[in-house]
């Protein structure tokens, strides 16, 4: 009882000791904040990565792909059994996207064009969730919607059929106006601009070099007011640029939007590949908030891509795909499933890369993990340094309390009891220090976005730039596990720091301690 009472009284009366644990407090607060932000980032990144890449990806090493995706799917179903939730075949191919900007300019950007099966692609990931049109989120479709894109985004430009018609009418009116102006000026009526010269095809392929032209030639009745080309879904950063407007607010400026036509150029299957181009109509925009994907992905219907690349054998009615994406039940062991697939499709026989999404994102995940670990070690070192401060303060307190120790021993307190007074004192100091640190840390995490905004106002420099991270807010997750670990570590350090002084107190000779002035 006296141990508790004295520890408590020492805690309440020795403010200098409280000062010595401020570093513990700050260390704990920082650890909690850092871990919360890191966990938030990791979790958010994982969610998005896994949303985009399915659990296991079964990829052909060749761009020509492999035939018989249905047989492969059946085999995969057999191997994985009840663990399997969804499976879909895709074709992925590098492509050059060309977006008309203004009247005679084109914005060209390299993208990874993925041909997806409308019916099954949504089963293997969260792809659908990231589309802007609410109906497309329910059921993926490559048909242009009338209207109603991105209802939750403020100031999203008008998109869809109504926009498309308005745009075409505007363009036609503009052209008429230009012609009229020219006529007024008495200029010689210009001829229609000549078709650009088609470069000679080095491989002499039968594939037309500009299917856009051939498209119009083949379908002279194509009316853009009522008809669309094959649909394409673009990553948001492919077709837009994020920047601050004059008020300092972050805005997306769209180079094209659903309803616009873009041109795509891709290599065909076969060796050596040729290049084919086609005009596609943007039917939706994809925003996963992972800049890596938002800036590089474009999706179109699987069959259209296969046709465009010549990935089917009409004679035997066999289609080719480059990858199969597999979704497993939540909690299923991905690595085990991957290993089972690898043993079913040995690399010597089947040149496929079979990887889990973690394997594919290994370097990124490992980097985040490493960063977290290093930060944790550094911050714990700070707390350990604080431990030495506590040790020094405690030593002083034991010296100051020498006479009390003598009195307690004269009253019959055993050495162990004296020791536990000071250990208890250290424990309660650690508890107070880390408790206050916990409070501070949680408060900071809770208001982290407000704090970042405040710092931005004060320093005039962006702390967390949404144009860089594609997160509008700093994601945080406070895990109980981490909090308990950090608290326990800090308290343990405070107790450890008080062991030496407590031992010294316990070993004091009662007579000498009583005489101590």
């Amino acid at each position, binding site marked *: *009882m*006296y141990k*508790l009472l004295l520890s408590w009284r020492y805690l309440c009366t020795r403010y200098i000791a409280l000062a010595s644990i401020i570093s513990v407090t700050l260390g704990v607060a920082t650890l909690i904040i850092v871990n919360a932000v890191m966990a938030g980032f990791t979790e958010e990144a994982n969610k998005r990565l896994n949303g985009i890449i399915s659990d296991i990806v079964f990829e052909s090493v060749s761009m020509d792909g492999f035939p018989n995706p249905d047989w492969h799917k059946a085999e995969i179903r057999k191997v994985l059994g009840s663990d399997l939730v969804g499976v879909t075949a895709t074709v992925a191919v590098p492509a050059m996207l060309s977006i008309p900007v203004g009247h005679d300019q084109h914005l060209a950007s390299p993208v990874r064009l993925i041909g997806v099966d409308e019916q099954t692609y949504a089963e293997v990931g969260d792809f659908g969730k990231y589309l802007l049109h609410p109906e497309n989120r329910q059921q993926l479709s490559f048909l242009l919607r009338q209207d109603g894109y991105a209802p939750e985004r403020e100031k999203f430009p008008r998109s869809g059929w109504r926009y498309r018609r308005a745009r075409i009418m505007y363009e036609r009116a503009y052209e008429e106006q230009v012609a009229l102006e020219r006529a007024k000026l008495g200029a010689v009526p210009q001829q229609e601009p000549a078709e650009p010269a088609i470069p000679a095809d080095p491989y002499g392929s039968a594939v037309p070099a500009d299917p856009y032209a051939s498209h119009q030639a083949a379908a002279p009745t194509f009316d853009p007011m009522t008809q669309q080309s094959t649909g394409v879904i673009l990553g948001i950063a492919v077709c837009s640029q994020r920047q601050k407007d004059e008020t300092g607010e972050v805005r997306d400026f769209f180079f094209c939007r659903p309803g616009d036509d873009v041109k795509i150029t891709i290599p065909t299957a076969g060796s050596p590949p040729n290049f084919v181009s086609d005009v596609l109509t943007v039917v939706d925009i994809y925003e996963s908030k992972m800049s890596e994907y938002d800036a590089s992905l474009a999706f179109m219907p699987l069959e259209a891509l296969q046709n465009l690349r010549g990935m089917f054998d009409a004679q035997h009615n066999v289609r080719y795909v480059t990858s199969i994406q597999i979704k497993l039940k939540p909690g299923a062991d991905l690595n085990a499933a991957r290993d089972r697939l690898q043993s079913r499709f040995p690399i010597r026989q089947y040149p496929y890369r079979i990887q889990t999404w973690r394997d594919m994102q290994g370097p990124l995940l490992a980097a985040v993990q490493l960063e977290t670990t290093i930060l944790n070690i550094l911050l714990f070192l700070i707390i350990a340094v604080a431990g030495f401060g506590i040790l020094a303060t405690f030593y002083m307190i034991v010296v100051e309390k020498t006479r009390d120790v003598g*009195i*307690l021993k004269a*009253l*019959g*307190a*055993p050495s162990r009891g004296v020791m536990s007074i000071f250990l208890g004192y250290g424990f309660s100091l650690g508890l107070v220090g880390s408790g206050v640190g916990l409070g501070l840390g949680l408060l900071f995490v809770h208001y982290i976005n407000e704090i970042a905004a405040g710092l931005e106002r004060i320093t005039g420099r962006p702390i967390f730039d949404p144009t860089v991270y594609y997160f509008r807010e700093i994601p945080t997750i406070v895990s109980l596990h981490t909090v308990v670990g950090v608290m326990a570590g800090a308290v343990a350090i405070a107790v450890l720091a008080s062991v030496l002084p407590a031992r010294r107190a316990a070993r004091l000779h009662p007579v000498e301690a009583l005489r101590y002035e």
Partner: protein
Amino acid sequence: MNSLTATSSPTIAVRPTGAAQSHAFPGLHSLSATVPLPAPAPADSDYQLVARGLHKSFRKGNLIIPVLRGVDFAVRRGQFTAVVGQSGSGKSTLLHLLATLDAPDRGEVHFEGTRIDNLPPIKRDRIRNRNLGMIFQFYHLLPELTTLENVLAPSMIHEGIWSYLRHKRAHVERAQRLLDLVGLSHRLQHRPRELSGGEMQRAAIARALIAAPQLLLADEPTGNLDRRNGVEILSILRTLNREENLTIVMVTHDLAIAERADCTVQLVEGQVQAT
């Protein structure tokens, strides 16, 4: 008198309960407990405290300073003994040896017929806590605790948390009675720094009595007090001795104070000169 040697029981009563016992301080011994002690030694049944051939020296660098050079000394039950001597004659050292706060180089200390100077530390701690009361020249109250808590300290040390909390009411009542007895009932919640010297010494006496000890060891209890307070403290001790039959060994350098004791032991240069 019941003692270890008489009853051959492995325990001793904390206070002899005789018919002659006075009731000037009712309830003083209501919390008497028994504490087991090791096997008894065969002699000295009349004496409560016996010191035989005590030697003690201290080392200062290379120099060995002998303080006690064979002190033989015995105290009967209920006796008020004063140990007098010049400064440096070894009185306090003797008291520390008797209180098992220090161990003699040679010699033995027997308490209630049991040798106590060579007991393991835990047992000596228990004897100090339960069987002996101590008061000091500089009072030695714990500055962080109130007067009441200081008086309760030995009980807190003796009992575990739950046991103490279970009996807390009885402990507090007893402490309040003792503080009332020494005239400090109006100072229960004051810290030692808010008390005068005389008040602090009275609190120290109450603390020494909380466990109802058989023996009170006092180290210059009046040494730091003015004459009037000194006389008051002494009369409290005297009353305790007479009415509670409490054995008291008091160390003092003041012969006038020593005269109030039943007998006086004079210590000169580490040896007993006269009794």
